[in-house]
């Protein structure tokens, strides 16, 4: 590296614009100095915690106790033993996260696609509507959570009061009973994040060449034919991206359940992140919570890999 740098610094070096690799007139330390401030933060709050988390999960780690003895894989095996302190709560929370992910992802993938197809037509005020549908997403989960807790209040909420006017004369327990609590959590998540996925789809739709549609029309394709044979194949990479992102986001669900149902009824909507937070940061049993985090992370990585495989094989066939 040094020798090439010296060569380039030589007075008879060729004109810079000809040099494909660019002029490299910086000292050996310069790039590292540019990287230093971010590097400190990256190592301190990404690399160190990623490794430290594994170390914690191998200890009986209670940060209020003077000693944190090494326990090997016990925090992990405890989660699989029927006598483990957290076994039942943890797997129930994993089940809740699983139910939410499986039930919410289809809506979060399909409904925004329908909205994106609508927005992909040319009409007056299109950018305004695009912005309106995106607005809930910029508000954040805390605002959306307290708002829906109010709208869906079984006794005084406006949703039930409108249903009364429509002739449904019973108070639907939106936040307190199943399956209504799941309907609420999924519905509000669609409302909150629809704009985000719709905009990603919209960009994908606009990337599909209009010539493909023209060619299909010449062949006498119907609108449905065009959707199936041009739009869907053209969207495949974008759909993979949206689906993967949405699965991960749904598996990370926390704020909605924390604010709207608070895990009700009987902890059945208490998600894995709520469990990890409660055990690790409220009960201060960080060893167990770290083990839970890594277990959930492994499950998510596996699901992402399967998802990639699925989309790829479908793309090849």
């Amino acid at each position, binding site marked *: 590296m040094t020798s090439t740098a010296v060569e380039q610094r030589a007075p008879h070096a060729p004109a810079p614009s000809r040099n494909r690799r660019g002029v490299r007139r910086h000292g050996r330390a310069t790039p590292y100095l540019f990287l230093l401030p971010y590097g400190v933060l990256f190592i301190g709050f990404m690399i160190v915690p990623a490794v430290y988390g594994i170390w914690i999960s191998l200890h009986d780690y209670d940060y209020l106790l003077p000693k944190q003895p090494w326990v090997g894989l016990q925090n992990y095996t405890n989660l699989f033993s029927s006598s483990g302190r957290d076994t039942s709560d943890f797997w129930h929370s994993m089940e809740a996260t699983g139910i939410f992910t499986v039930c919410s992802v289809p809506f979060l993938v399909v409904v925004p696609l329908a909205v994106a197809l*609508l927005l992909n*037509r040319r*009409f007056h005020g299109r950018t305004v509507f695009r912005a309106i549908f995106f607005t809930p997403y910029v508000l954040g989960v805390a605002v959306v959570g*307290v708002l829906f807790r*109010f709208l869906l209040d079984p006794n005084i909420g406006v949703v039930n009061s409108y249903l009364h006017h429509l002739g449904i004369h019973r108070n639907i327990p939106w936040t307190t009973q199943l399956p209504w609590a799941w309907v609420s959590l999924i519905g509000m998540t669609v409302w909150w994040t629809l704009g985000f996925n719709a905009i990603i789809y919209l960009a994908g739709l606009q990337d599909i060449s209009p010539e493909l549609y023209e060619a299909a029309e010449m062949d006498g394709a*119907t609108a449905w034919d065009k959707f199936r044979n041009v739009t869907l194949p053209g969207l495949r990479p974008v759909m993979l991206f949206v689906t993967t992102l949405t699965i991960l986001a749904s*598996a*990370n669900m926390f704020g909605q359940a924390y604010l709207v149902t608070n895990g009700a009824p009987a902890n059945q909507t208490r998600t894995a992140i709520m469990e990890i937070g409660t055990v690790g940061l409220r009960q201060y049993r*960080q060893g167990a919570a770290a083990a839970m985090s890594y277990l959930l992370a492994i499950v998510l990585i596996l699901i992402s890999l399967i998802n990639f495989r699925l989309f790829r094989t479908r793309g090849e066939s």
Partner: protein
Amino acid sequence: MTEQAVADNSTVPDRAAGGGNPAGRPAGSTGGRVARRTVFWLVIAALTVIFVAPLLWMLVTSFKTPNAATNPNSSWLPHPVDTSSYHTLLHSGSMPVLRWFANSLIAGLANMVLIVAVDALAAYALARMEFVGRRLIFGTVVGTIFLPGFMFLVPNFLIVSKLGWLDSLWAIIVPSAGGAFGVFFLRQFFSTLPRELEEAAIIDGANQWRVFVRIVLPLSRPALATLAVLTFLTNWNDFLWPVFVLFTASNLTLPAGLSTLQNAATTNYPLIMAGAVIASVPVIILFILAQRQVIESVSRSGLKG
């Protein structure tokens, strides 16, 4: 307008409509087209109501009395307009919303400045300089984008506690600056800049620092602004982390504060909605001002994937 819209529409293939005609667009179906237009606008109108009505409900409720807010038969608009919820919040000792607002603003701005500054420096080195380990460093940084955030919850809690940052804004400002998104985002942008200007400046004897400050940063204003807006929005809205690392009422950010407000005020919904309005106004204004940058950065994210 209708005519023009129809004309516009004919240039774009009709992808969403149900039925279609094998022979393209035959004449004489004007009636059908008008009907379809009507359905289209009805759907758009319905969607608009679905997205706007809850937000309006939040706003009008914040100006109602607690009794009016919980009476299912009360009117949409508050009468009389009652501003006591805002008075209560602004003068409350146990629910110091102004303090939360200030905390969120300070943390959001500090986090934004920190991230844009350190990420721009690192991204420039990764985009333009040659050095040992460049690929490895960039690969490692990008790789962490795919790690789920909850993995860091427990270890970062302990790291922050060892630094003495629990229950302080430092915990909200600093740790998220380790995130890789901004470095990746800016590196991609710097790579698209023409090299000629930088090279000319170096021939003229400028060092890398001057090239970066005088040439690269001014050329990158749009990308830096987009990253700044996205970073601020993310920090302002962050919920999971502040809920667990901030404890004292006066140290909370708005999202964590809203959660405690909800628990304390139980069914005093005008009070809770007033808090939600206060938390929403800055991001709505920011979104109106920076709408294009926000939406474009989201839409570009999919094309990479």
